[in-house]
């Protein structure tokens, strides 16, 4: 086999003590269709940045077409034939589609008043490749989101790349658009190597011949989509467990008195830049119960939590009720005041504030009947007591999570939203977290938990809603899962179905 077009040798990128990419090695030959997958924070986008030159590696070598390009600036790499698209389309919105593509056609003179006919022809060829010929004279701003993504790819193709880097090309696209995009990538000229990062595993297995799995910046495995699907390590990192069959018996499932729901969500819809992320979500969380929302990466779990908390706008028709009081028109503060507590993804602690200062911020609103005993809350988190004068970046992941929890609890919430609390935590700390969540519910708090870690979800939740492709596809009690583990296994395992062209 000829020498690879792109070779990564133990490439690393660290931010302080954190390794975003940790000694990843990879070979990519001409004509390859290679995908990189992995949970959030696995280092996928960072790896693309390292290859495109928008970030410099802190270790290792990057060889491209026989050159060591590790120290080349991004524009030099682009001229050498490395083209990329961005997670969100980076287009000149007032310009027409063809003008956008023209910007990228190489070999033009800057001083030319009109673009050369050759360049215009090249631009139209690139547009035809992605099927946008009819929309060539529309401005980028007028294009639908899916068309903008295709235009972004046309811009990359117009530079006549040898290596095409695609960052989450299927994000925000409808199923039919994803199918078209897969077809487009498969039919790209055979001498172009494609390296793509994506969360949509069906899309990945439709497009890629080779798949690499990253986790916490480390290379887990590389293989064909089929090999990846059956690889036990992949299931483990992607779902936090290999099978959801070993939940510990839930002591309180029987004691919880199921009353009227505290938190009710009706017809929740939300999206980003016009692309729907959630449609028609309906959920009830009664007092004293934990409802878990599980789903693959990119299924919309975080958007759901943020939309309920008021951190992300909901679309018309959405109804969110707390104790029967509609919250939909409220901002995040009034929702918090009404009794909604939020522990967001990534914790969102306040940089520069000490632990003690974090704990002075929340105060239960005087109009609320529920009171909170500060000392009692802090007793839940003994580790924080010794860390009172530390700032978030000096805390371990577990301590950060405890602080985020304590901050939410000090406002005495009736309903608590938890987004991926186990993210980045050691197993022992996850166990501690499970105990805390269970005891919170025992005191009557309604808990909505978005989790990727299925074992944790099964351990603490009374019922589990499965989110897939913008909607809830299944809603089951944890007791049923214990009897029939396959119930959850199907919609959650790595690549479920081969995409059916629609």
């Amino acid at each position: 086999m000829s020498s690879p077009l792109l070779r990564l040798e133990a490439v690393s990128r660290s931010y302080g003590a954190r390794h975003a990419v940790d000694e990843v090695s990879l070979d990519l030959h001409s004509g390859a269709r290679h995908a990189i997958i992995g949970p959030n924070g696995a280092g996928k986008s960072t790896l693309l940045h390292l290859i495109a030159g928008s970030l410099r590696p802190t270790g290792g070598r990057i060889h491209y077409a026989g050159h060591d390009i590790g120290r080349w600036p991004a524009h030099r790499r682009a001229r050498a034939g490395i083209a990329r698209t961005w997670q969100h389309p980076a287009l000149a919105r007032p310009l027409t589609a063809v003008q956008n593509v023209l910007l990228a056609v190489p070999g033009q003179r800057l001083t030319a008043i009109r673009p050369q006919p050759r360049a215009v022809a090249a631009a139209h060829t690139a547009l035809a490749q992605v099927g946008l010929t009819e929309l060539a004279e529309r401005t980028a701003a007028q294009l639908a989101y899916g068309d903008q993504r295709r235009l972004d790819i046309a811009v990359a193709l117009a530079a006549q790349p040898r290596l095409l880097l695609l960052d989450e090309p299927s994000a925000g696209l409808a199923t039919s658009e994803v199918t078209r995009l897969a077809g487009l990538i498969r039919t790209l000229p055979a001498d172009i190597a494609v390296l793509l990062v994506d969360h949509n595993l069906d899309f990945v297995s439709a497009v890629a011949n080779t798949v690499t799995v990253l986790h916490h910046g480390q290379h887990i495995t590389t293989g064909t989509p089929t090999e990846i699907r059956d690889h036990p390590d992949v299931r483990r990192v992607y779902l936090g467990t290999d099978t959801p069959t070993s939940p510990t018996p839930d002591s309180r499932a029987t004691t919880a008195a199921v009353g009227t729901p505290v938190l009710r969500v009706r017809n929740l819809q939300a999206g980003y830049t016009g692309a729907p992320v959630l449609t028609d979500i309906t959920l009830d969380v009664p007092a004293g119960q934990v409802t878990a929302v599980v789903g693959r990466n990119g299924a919309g779990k975080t958007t759901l939590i943020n939309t309920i908390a008021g951190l992300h706008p909901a679309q018309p028709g959405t109804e969110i009720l707390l104790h029967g009081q509609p919250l939909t028109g409220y901002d995040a503060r009034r929702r918090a005041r009404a009794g909604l507590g939020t522990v967001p993804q990534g914790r969102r602690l306040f940089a520069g504030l000490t632990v003690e200062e974090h704990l002075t911020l929340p105060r239960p609103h005087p109009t609320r009947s529920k009171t909170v005993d500060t000392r009692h809350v802090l007793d839940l988190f003994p580790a924080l007591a010794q860390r009172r004068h530390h700032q978030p970046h000096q805390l371990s992941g577990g301590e950060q999570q405890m602080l985020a929890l304590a901050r939410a609890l000090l406002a005495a919430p009736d309903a608590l939203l938890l987004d991926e609390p186990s993210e980045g935590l050691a197993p022992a700390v996850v166990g501690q977290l499970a105990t805390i969540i269970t005891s919170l519910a025992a005191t009557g708090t309604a808990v909505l938990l978005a989790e990727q870690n299925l074992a944790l979800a099964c351990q603490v939740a009374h019922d589990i809603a499965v989110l897939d492709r913008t909607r809830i596809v299944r809603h089951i009690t944890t007791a049923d899962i214990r009897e029939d583990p396959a119930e959850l296994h199907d919609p959650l395992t790595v690549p479920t179905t081969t995409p059916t062209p629609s």
Partner: protein
Amino acid sequence: MGGLVTPYTITALDGVAYGLLLFTIAAGLTLIVGVAGVFSMAHGTLYLAGAYLAWHLADGGWTGLALALAAAVVVGVLGGAGLAAAVRPLTDRPLDQVLATLGIAYIAADQFSAVFGAEPRSVDPPRAVAGSISLGDYQYPIYRLLFIAIGLAVVAALFWLVERSRVGAVVRAVVADPGMAAATGLRIGIVRTSVLAGGGALAVTAGVLGAPVIGPAPGVDTTILVYSLIVCVVGGLGSIRGALLAALGVGQILTLGVAIVPGAAAFILAAAMLAVLTVRHRTALPGRPS
């Protein structure tokens, strides 16, 4: 003692006074930008309003100064709250806010000229502190020393307020993550308006106290605005500590710099700014959590 007192240390002392004055003005602006996200182009105007207030009310005694200070707090709070109300419809439109506050600054400058005249006014400090004392072989104005003392007190009070009190924790939480601060139950809107009002009060008060140092005259508002913006940007938006260091640095360059290399001080200021911004950018990047 004698070895310490040279023309340069005397000039450096001037620089400290100048730096503390800039800090008092710019500390408000850096919080306004950091917390409320408003690049207030009317901040220099507030200083000038304070300086004219001092000129108008000064009677050579302590009463005039006290009256002027009381009026300054009222004018500053009202001015800041007024600015907050004016830019409220323009939330999330930073350029429109800049234009709106710039317009207010122009109108105010015009009114100042119409009311107080176009010639520079000099403001005398209260008689009790109007003289000089000798430092070694040199005579140094007492008021300037007093001003340094007041400036240091302002520094200490602001540090305590922003870095030690709950109010400061609330303000810094809003700087760090407004969305999450709201979800924690904090009133973002009131915090933002209060910071504008407090910053306004600081600027007008600085105008009253600083009038004997930088007196009221047309154009002073622009000069002060430019220097405060430099202090804010170099010190980092929303950072009191950064603003203090930057203000002291700018103060030294504008006094000691002018004394050592006359004519090149503007270039030194620009070069120092670039150097600080470059170095800070480099060092800030690697450790930044993502």
